[in-house]
């Protein structure tokens, strides 16, 4: 499709939908209060929204949807760290049942949805081994923030708020660990991998002190390498009075295998849109869950969804609570989806998820390494858990083609990967995470594309460098995006700065 911008579709007078009008008797009694607003408060100029008939609006967005490579449409193993798994369609249907439910309804009238929230909390407590769980955070990073806020509140409750001003994380943990800590006012200490790819335990020992508020760490990290000394890491932090918070974004390969509790963590979080299958939705709505030990439970955001054996209720968490992190009880649609997904699998199924995700990953690893120009840095010859951060450094050295070019070229074949792994500790990175959702045939297809794209890089590098060739659009001239004089975040800005300026 060569679909215009929505503003270019306007035809003055067209209507996409009509809203109800006030009834004559209503108007007779109250007039038109909007028209009676005082100057300066009454809108003087209608918003310059486009005017488009319903059919054309629909066609516009349907075409844009077709120009989007959803996970449902491709073998989506290239968005490693994101755990792109199959999001069962039945769960999308189930949530229609809560579409019109106001979140501030009296608990007596929403026992069904509260039962599901409570049920999910319980299941995640078991999966993590933690004592209490909230599903209020809006997504994974919001859950990290929530954990940081609880860490802060915990230390404050012990009078150590000022003393403990450092948070330690690792370079292969999600950037939000570092960023949330900084936002909460912490100084961030970042650990880098040692030669084996494990976070450097000596660096940790050097970093901890009475200033340490917490360690925020992923395991396995985004390299797919599981840190076997994780309990030691936790102990080291505990030994100086810090807390340990487990970023479980990469939990998919270890469900039922190992848990936050066994490693001694105080807090953890899950991304329901990763491990528990809720759809990624172009970047949310997602949902996050935080699990904590009993000691940290008083700091949970409220209200808590509780059950007294007869009825579900919303309970005030008490004075130590950090308060609200999000309106209401969280992203209820995704909570229902995640609950349904677990209920479709059970304990045995979750373990199968983990094992097959890991099997798929190691299959992919084995086959990928047969391709010229690619490597899997660190832990040479060892198995990985659920993903691998590959490096095309050799291929780049040989051909000058960047990893990003390869990813864009792969899109011409209907698959893709992303390279947003700043800073590039692994050079020319590509992170592949096959999850349990793809068959061997699917993986072979993906590997085939990688092989072909790498071959092209060696044999006809310009083909790769100028990709994409089959997309709707061609390569951006990126420089305008960082220049305040030319960036154009809205149509009105574009018109003012670019179009009208011509």
């Amino acid at each position, binding site marked *: 499709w060569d679909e215009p911008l929505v503003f270019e579709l306007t035809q003055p007078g067209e209507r996409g939908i009509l809203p109800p009008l006030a009834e004559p008797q209503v108007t007779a009694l109250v*007039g038109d209060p909007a028209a009676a607003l005082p100057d300066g408060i009454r809108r003087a100029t209608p918003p310059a929204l486009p005017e488009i008939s319903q059919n054309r609006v629909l066609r516009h967005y349907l075409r844009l949807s077709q120009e989007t490579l959803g996970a449902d449409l491709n073998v989506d193993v290239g968005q490693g760290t994101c755990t792109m798994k199959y999001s069962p369609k039945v769960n999308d249907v189930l949530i229609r049942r809560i579409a019109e439910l106001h979140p501030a309804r009296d608990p007596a009238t929403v026992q069904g949805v509260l039962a599901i929230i409570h049920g999910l909390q319980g299941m995640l407590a078991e999966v993590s081994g933690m004592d209490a769980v909230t599903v209020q955070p809006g997504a994974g990073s919001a859950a990290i923030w929530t954990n940081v806020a609880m860490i802060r509140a915990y230390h404050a409750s012990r009078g150590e708020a000022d003393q403990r001003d450092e948070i330690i994380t690792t370079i292969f943990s999600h950037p939000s660990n570092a960023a949330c800590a900084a936002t909460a006012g912490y100084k961030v200490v970042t650990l880098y991998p040692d030669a084996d790819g494990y976070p450097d335990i000596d660096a940790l020992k050097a970093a901890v002190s009475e200033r340490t508020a917490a360690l925020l760490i992923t395991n396995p990290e985004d390299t797919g390498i599981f840190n076997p000394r994780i309990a030691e890491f936790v102990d080291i932090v505990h030994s100086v009075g810090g807390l340990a918070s487990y970023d479980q974004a990469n939990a998919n390969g270890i469900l039922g295998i190992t*848990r936050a509790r066994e490693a001694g963590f105080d807090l953890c979080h899950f991304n329901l849109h990763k491990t528990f299958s809720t759809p990624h939705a172009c970047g949310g709505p997602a949902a996050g869950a935080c699990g904590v030990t009993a000691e940290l439970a008083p700091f949970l955001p409220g209200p808590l969804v509780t059950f007294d054996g007869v009825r579900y209720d919303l309970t005030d968490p008490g004075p130590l609570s950090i308060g609200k992190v999000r309106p209401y009880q969280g992203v209820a649609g995704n909570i229902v989806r995640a609950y349904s997904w677990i209920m479709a699998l059970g304990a045995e199924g979750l373990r199968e998820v983990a094992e097959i995700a890991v099997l798929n990953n190691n299959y992919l690893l084995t086959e990928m390494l047969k391709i010229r120009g690619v490597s899997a840095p660190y832990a040479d010859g060892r198995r990985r858990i659920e993903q691998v951060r590959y490096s095309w450094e050799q291929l780049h050295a040989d051909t000058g083609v960047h990893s990003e070019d390869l990813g864009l070229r792969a899109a011409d074949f209907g698959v893709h990967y992303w390279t947003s792994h700043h800073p590039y500790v692994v050079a020319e990175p590509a992170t592949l995470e096959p999850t349990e959702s793809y068959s061997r045939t699917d993986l072979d297809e993906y590997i085939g594309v990688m092989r072909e794209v790498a071959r092209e890089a060696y044999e006809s590098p310009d083909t790769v460098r100028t990709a994409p060739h089959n997309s709707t659009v061609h390569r951006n001239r990126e420089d305008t995006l960082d220049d305040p004089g030319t960036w154009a975040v809205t149509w009105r800005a574009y018109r003012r700065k670019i179009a009208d300026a011509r």
Partner: protein
Amino acid sequence: MDHAHPYIPNSVPEVRAAMLVSVGAVDVEEFYADIPADLRLHRPLLLPEPMRSEAELVRHVGGLLDRNVDGLSFLGGGCYPHHVPAVCDEVNGRAEFLTAYAGEPYEDHGRFQALWEYQSLMGELLELDVVNVPTYDGYQAAATSIRMAGRVTGRSKVLLGGPVSPDKLSKITDYLRGAMTFTDALDEDTACVFLEYPNHHGVIDVEAPTLVAAAHAAGALAVVSCNPMALGVLASPASFGADIVCGDIQPLGMHMQYGGGQAGFIATRDDERLVMEFPSRLFGLVPTVVDGEYGFGDVAYDRTSFGVREEGKEWVGTAAALWGITAGVYLSLMGPTGMREIGSTIMARTAYAMRLLGAIPGVTLPNADDPHFCEFVVEFVRPVGEILDALRDRGIFAGLPLDGHRALVCVTEVHTQADIELLAASVREVLA
């Protein structure tokens, strides 16, 4: 498992075995060699018995949800009952949009365009040039907006310019902790005045422009949280000088979904000082190597924690992009006339409800003379819990309890004259 699960293709025992051979492993345990025994869970997870079939799953979850009770609802207070056009659901239900994620601007051109168009449509409604890819919700948008004001001004105090919902205030309080504090005075330490428009009680504060001017006079910014649904009839905050405008787009095409439909927006002028303080992604229109072709990409990516980790502005992650696309669809459908009409309808019906309820003995309206949008405070002669319970027994969820005797009642375009009259008659009955 002795058979394959529909969600796990390679759980076919023969395939699983063949793949193990192919990678030279005896057993999946090999892959877990790095996990020490003392970290292993040596028993199955204790989870409820799963549903074998989709049919049973639907029945199980449906059975739970059957325990929710329906009624005629006048609940608002941050999450509003509006009609969701079917086209909005059609678009956000498209498999492509529902399951896309972090693709590049090429194979995901449609997603980038749809989100940039959302920004642009909101920009027209707000009369501002910069709008973010949605953040989680209006609470987060407010909290971040205030911290943006703190960074821009280098000041650390925030002055509230009217009633704010306790929950939102709780979130803001937590989010500012250590960085900013509240104040009662407008002075040289004040980073911003924060006001809601309409406010938490549904009142359209006609003094809002005055407050904004006062903030500016003190060298502070004005941060205005507004209900975008009102802006077909209300002057945009930008029109009277607001510097940062934020709020929640849930009213623009999102089902309430027990709170799952919230998504936050933040908007500013196209001023580099403001733009560089956004934590969120901002998509921009960009030329491509083909003349005349529109592409899309990230504006000033190195502001973000995706780009520079803890050096970024606050943090960014997966938030609520699909609701942004949906709000874009909503605004495309409504157009300027639709937004004006719906605003007028809501104000008229709200006023009608106020007239009817205000005429009931035992009911008073604290702000009866102010213009209201979509909700208003009702004060009962008897304790509010008692009244609301009695109405709930009649199948009416009449409002949100505020405190002792007061409730917040919400009326939108979905409430017909007859609905409002039924509410009034029921309140009269309960109070009689």
